[in-house]
């Protein structure tokens, strides 16, 4: 893609955000076909050899089509419900989809899904698009303290996170077209279960895992500079998110303790007013002001806990996601490099054969083969291996290029989302704090006004002072 700079952190003139009309490159009509449901590229099992006709169209797949301002799919997650079976208890969430996309048979769907189903969807999407950056799922468990799985706050936080996850998928031009996403949104419970079973078998998944582990052990040799820069950035960024998460939780803790003391403070003024005569009104007034400030403080704490805290936590999880994406990209490159090495080895063997340096066929002559025949057989064998390897290498090199392009494109998208998420969260927090102080200000100002008025009335009626 033209216009991509080497440094991923360097901004392009326009900020990428899901709903903006910004685009990287305007594609022509032939690319629109890429998004029809018939062409499921990079979907399902990697063993699938049905590859597109040319590398060029594969690369083009990852250019973003112009994003229109109007969203054509809306997803909500709500309405948690508890289910009890003989074996277990679990929560399901209602997932409502409204869409005008043609690949959907209807324009409205309502299904119930449990956390496991979301996990399955994420894994399928990751398999299909290993180097696209997805918003993280909420954690499986919460390690802090004794949080019950069915604690109301926990369920609400999880629900909001699941909602955000699905929406980010729905907003993604590539991920939202994945077949499994559609199934997730539309299939009835039994349909989903049977579809899950149809997926790539256990053995093929094992094969992937083995290859991935082998690749990660091998390591990548020549990682392009821009991806190293991404890794360094994500590392630093992750540390900042962890720090901010900690700081914000500490603020919530301190606020709660402050509130605790404040709640004991007001009543002392009320108690005092019981022994006074002239001072009853001002003392009760102060007590009432403090009580109202308590309420405002409670609201502020709630807002912080429900907005900034979960958001920062999400971005701590995000950095893990992004690091995983970078690792997968590395593994794809490592795999390709390994294949290249294998090809080079075979070619060297072939060369060695030409120079008759290979004495293996001598052995073959002991087994009753004519030396010339043995040599020819070996030559043929090597040639066919080399041809196979050449095809593999080409395939893998294309795979690497696709993966890199996918990542580069999605990196900007992720950065844009990150900026707008963080900005929104902090702006909202600042707004709430202003609101909190404005509320308290009004409370104390009205007290002061009423006291001054009362005092004026008193002095006018010829009272003391």
């Amino acid at each position, binding site marked *: 893609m033209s216009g991509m700079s080497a440094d991923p952190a360097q901004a392009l003139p326009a900020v990428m955000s899901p709903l903006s009309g910004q685009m990287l490159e305007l594609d022509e009509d032939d690319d629109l076909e890429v998004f029809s449901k018939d062409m499921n590229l990079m979907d399902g099992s990697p063993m699938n050899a049905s590859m597109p006709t040319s590398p060029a169209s594969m690369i083009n797949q990852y250019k973003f089509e112009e994003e229109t301002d109007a969203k054509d799919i809306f997803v909500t997650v709500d309405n948690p419900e508890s289910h009890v079976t003989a074996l277990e208890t679990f929560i399901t969430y209602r997932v409502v989809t409204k869409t005008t996309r043609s690949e959907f048979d209807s324009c409205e769907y309502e299904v119930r899904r449990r956390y496991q189903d979301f996990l399955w969807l994420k894994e399928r999407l990751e398999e299909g698009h290993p180097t696209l950056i997805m918003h993280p799922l909420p954690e499986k468990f919460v390690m802090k303290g004794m949080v019950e799985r069915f604690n109301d706050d926990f369920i609400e936080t999880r629900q909001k996170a699941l909602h955000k996850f699905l929406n980010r998928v729905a907003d993604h031009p590539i991920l939202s077209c994945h077949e499994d996403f559609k199934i997730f949104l539309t299939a009835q419970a039994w349909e989903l279960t049977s579809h899950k079973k149809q997926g790539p078998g256990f053995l093929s998944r094992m094969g992937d895992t083995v290859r991935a582990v082998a690749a990660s052990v091998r390591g990548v040799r020549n990682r392009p500079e821009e991806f190293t820069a991404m890794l360094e950035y994500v590392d630093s960024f992750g540390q900042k998110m962890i720090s901010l998460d900690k700081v914000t939780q500490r603020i919530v803790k301190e*606020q709660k303790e402050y509130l605790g003391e404040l709640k004991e403070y007001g009543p002392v003024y009320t108690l005092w007013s019981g022994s006074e005569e002239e001072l009853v009104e001002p003392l009760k007034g102060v007590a009432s002001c403090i009580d109202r400030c308590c309420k405002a403080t409670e609201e502020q704490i709630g807002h912080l806990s429900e907005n900034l805290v979960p958001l920062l936590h999400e971005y701590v999880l995000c950095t893990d996601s992004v690091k995983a994406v970078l690792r997968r990209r590395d593994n794809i490159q490592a795999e390709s490099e390994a294949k290249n090495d294998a090809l080079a080895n075979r070619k060297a063997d072939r060369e060695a054969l030409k120079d008759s340096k290979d004495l293996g066929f001598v052995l073959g002559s002991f087994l009753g083969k004519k030396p010339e025949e043995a040599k020819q057989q070996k030559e043929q064998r090597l040639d066919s291996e080399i041809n196979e390897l050449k095809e593999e290498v080409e395939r893998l090199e294309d795979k690497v290029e696709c993966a890199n392009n996918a990542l580069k494109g999605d990196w900007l998208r992720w950065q844009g989302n990150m900026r707008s998420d963080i900005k929104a969260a902090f702006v909202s927090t600042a707004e709430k704090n202003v609101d909190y102080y404005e509320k308290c200000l009004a409370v104390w100002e009205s007290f002061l006004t009423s006291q001054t008025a009362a005092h004026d009335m008193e002095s006018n009626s010829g009272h003391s002072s």
Partner: protein
Amino acid sequence: MTSEKESRVPIMAEGSCLLRKMEISVAEAEKRTGKNAVNMQETYTVYLIETRPADSVTEGHNPVPDSLWRRYSEFELLRNYLLVTYPFIVIPPLPEKRAEFVWHKLSADNMDPDFVERRRIGLENFLLRVASHPVLSSDKIFFLFLTEENGWKEAVFETGFLAKSDSRLKALNATFRVKNPDKRFSELKHYSDELQSVTSQLLRVRARVADRLYGVYKVHGNYGRVFSEWSAIEKEMGDGLQSAGHHMDAYAASVDDILEEEEHYADQLKEYLFYAEAVKAVCRKHELLQYELETASQDLASKKQQQEELAAGTVRTFSFKGMTSKLFGQETPEQREAKLKVLEEQIKEGEEELQKEFVKNAWKDIERFKEQKDHDLREALMSYAVMQISMCKKGIQVWTNAKECFSKM
């Protein structure tokens, strides 16, 4: 709201003489070292008292005020003298000897400059209160305290006030044994107890609230640090983060001034916590006098009874002779009659003293005190509201600025 100092000036009672004639201030504090009574080296603080005629400045020139140095123990001596000499007056309290009701930031060290400064203000307040009091302001010893550096101590002791002071034991005894306490004084004592209890509770809770508030503000300073570090790796968000970080630092720092101001409010509450003790002292004096009166009446009553018994010829089981000689000595009935009359008169005089001098004057001062207290505490509550308003306004400003920075990210 007018300046702090003005809001703390006590209301001028009618006929307050000294303050009209003289400007008084405790201008400075200094550390000194010297040998104390047991010849040991000690460090203490002295305070500079400045005085000058009230009209001297208005004439357009600024004459140098007269001044002398006094230490805290001399203020205490003055106050003890006033307590004994004017037992029917609610004597203004001194600022606390040691820092109490502290929250973690303030040190409880008497040498801490903030504590010394607040004590300086408290001592000045004490002098102004005495100088504006209708009765106390005309006291000679008080005048000498302000004007005579040397020889003042001798003058105080020459008044013999120490001999006049009631022992605590006597006072405690009276509290328990008085039979007909004056209802007004009982209620006043009860009120003083409540005032002491509630103001000390208030001071304690306020200190805890201040401590927590400090924590909340200071933690925000961490945002400043992290934002600053983070801005280094961001291109587009860098500027916004950096400037937001500055505002977070400013927010964290602002709490110091806020809480320093609140200390003045706490000092105002403390003054009335200590005033409550002074009111109780007046009540105790009343109880003592009441008790003495009741004891004297009791003596008179039993002597009368004796006389009747003598006259009626009633015999008691114990030694008749022994008792009469104890009570009346070897006297003639006429002498006894005369002695009885004298006793009666003395009791009547005592009653008059109690009724007229003490109760009247005490009650007059108590009314004055009540008005002063209502006025001062009302002002204090309002100034507390003003502080809260100021704190809220600062908060609004900081977060509005921060919001702008975040919006630009």
